[in-house]
């Protein structure tokens, strides 16, 4: 038994354990959630957050931080609800251009050696500006196929759970189990040695930023599929949620240490934390603080585990 509960295993299990504890508390407080219908309602808004968290994770993986993700997801949501619905070709082109723009940002940050926080903070205003230009007042409508996908009611297992598992597994296999993924992660851990081994750092950064852009686009599309229409400020919370979710799920700000499965679990945990506090009937003025307290609690637990890990 003790052999399985090494600090390393504990560390990996911590995000899942926090989620399980939270879920148990929610089931206890509100037994209605323990049904197909309940889980669906409880978790469906976590899907776009999970996608945004994966996007942020790609950036964290190369030791950067993206402060524009919320604005970017809002922009892609606006494009999805307008162009992608009215003129699909233009919509696809615009969304592709968004991904390319993200890759170009990665190149800019790498070539000019700029701090990513400053560049992305600046870009967040650009994204919001374009979003307001595309959709000055809230509106638009979700393309029928996205709406159908996001409101799918498969038998037995609710769609949000299937979606989360698929997202986590696909990214896990691509980033953690493939040869290319190892190089990509290596840049976060030790860029010099990756460069000496003959890999282009520029290409890695551009790839990671493009992947982040791609998942940002997915997040915006998923969000519109749920809300049915968009708003230029629809996803501003996602910047902080995605960073918190990535870290909560076992990622680190430096060192290329990330976990796709953890990131998805972290995102779901954060989304559930909001529901948990609301079921507790906590005064909303305290809810942001309480959400922060949950984050600090989980991170403190992790610190405890890591310090034991180092001692061994």
């Amino acid at each position, binding site marked *: 038994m003790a052999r399985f509960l090494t600090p390393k295993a504990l560390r990996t299990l911590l995000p899942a354990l926090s989620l399980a504890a939270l879920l148990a508390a929610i089931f206890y407080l*509100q037994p209605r959630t323990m049904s197909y219908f309940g889980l669906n309602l409880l978790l469906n*808004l976590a899907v776009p957050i999970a996608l945004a968290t994966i996007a942020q994770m790609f950036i964290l993986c190369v030791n950067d931080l993206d402060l524009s993700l919320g604005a970017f997801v809002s922009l892609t949501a606006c494009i999805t609800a307008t162009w992608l619905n009215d003129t699909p070709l233009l919509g696809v082109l615009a969304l592709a251009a968004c991904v390319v723009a993200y890759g170009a940002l990665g190149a800019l940050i790498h070539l000019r050696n700029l701090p990513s926080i400053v560049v992305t903070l600046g870009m967040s205003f650009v994204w919001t500006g374009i979003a*307001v230009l595309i959709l000055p007042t809230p*509106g638009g409508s979700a393309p029928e196929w996205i709406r159908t996908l996001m409101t799918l009611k498969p038998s037995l297992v609710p769609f949000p759970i299937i979606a989360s598992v698929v997202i986590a597994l696909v990214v896990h296999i691509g980033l953690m189990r493939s040869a290319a993924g190892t190089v990509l992660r290596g840049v976060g851990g030790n860029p010099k040695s990756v460069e000496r081994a003959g890999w282009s750092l520029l290409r890695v950064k551009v790839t990671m930023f493009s992947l982040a852009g791609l998942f940002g686009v997915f997040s915006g599309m998923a969000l519109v599929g749920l809300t*049915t229409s968009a708003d230029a400020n629809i996803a501003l919370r996602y910047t902080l949620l995605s960073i918190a979710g990535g870290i909560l799920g076992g990622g680190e700000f430096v060192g290329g240490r990330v976990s796709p499965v953890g990131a998805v679990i972290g995102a779901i945990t954060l989304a559930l934390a909001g529901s948990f506090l609301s079921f507790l009937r906590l005064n909303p003025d305290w809810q*942001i603080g309480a959400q922060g307290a949950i984050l600090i609690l989980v991170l403190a637990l992790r610190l405890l585990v890591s310090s034991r890990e180092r001692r061994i």
Partner: protein
Amino acid sequence: MKLSTLGLLCLSAAVGTLATSVTAVADTSDKKIALSNNYAGNSWRQAMLTSWEKNASAAVADGTVAAADAFTTAENQVTEQAAQIQNLILQGYDAIVINAASPEALNGAVKEACDAGVVVVSFDGIVTEPCAYRIAVDFHNMGKVQVEYLASRLADGGDLLEIRGLAGVFVDDEISGGIHEGVAENAQFKIQGSVHGDWAQDVSQRAVAGILPSLPEIKGVVTQGGDGYGAAQAFKAAGRPTPIIVMGNRHDELTWWKEQKDANGYETMSVSIAPGVSTLAFWVAQQVLDGATVPQDLSVPFLTISQDTLEENLANTQVGGVANVEYSLEDSLAVISDN
């Protein structure tokens, strides 16, 4: 002491029974209504929540409904409110009354609620999902009447300053649209500047103080409510003559207007939506739960205060509050049958 408390309890219990038998709506006595509100950071919203609280606790006490709880989101964000609505469905509320962060982007969550058999009533910030009930105010006209009032006062026209609300909220777009339509019809006016005051005095004062040095002489200030007093202070601080500032029914605005009226005969008007519309939304939800037929779209008039009705309205407005009209069940039934 003990005895009198006991007596009071008996009395209130007796009153409670009496009220139940008078309103006779036993059908909804086991129903739960929730208020989902996106923002509470100004005097109007505070008054709206107070009206809800007062009305709802009375309705719960006399057994009209089982619960009527208010929930406010912390960050005024669409995704947050959508999650809140879904949580309210899970908590088993029979009706959800919404003041929405966005008219469109909550439709997914509202549809989920309707599909789960929950009655959805939106007011002030309404939602467009067809299955929801809407209690709307003609915000567009609320902007337009301000310019029309100014046209009646200033025959020669002149330069105007516009103070807008919270950027990106549809109420702000509607009122502003009405103002601009009014200006287009009255070519003697020109809007020289436009700032966002977020419907709050302090924000408005800062914003107006910031733009004033770049403006010519301003004849009138068109507003959205909650911003008039701040604008007046900014003009005073800049040493500029006070223009005609349209007020928004807040206590500090009405007080300032009264002081000016007594001191130098200052004339203006005041217009806003009464925060007590939340109580109308409550009764509409209760009536729908009771099985009554209610039109999907209801409209309520806005509350206008003129030079003559100033004193009366000021006397009825709480310090820090907003001139208010609260709706009883009878008033609400009258509104429903009028529509």
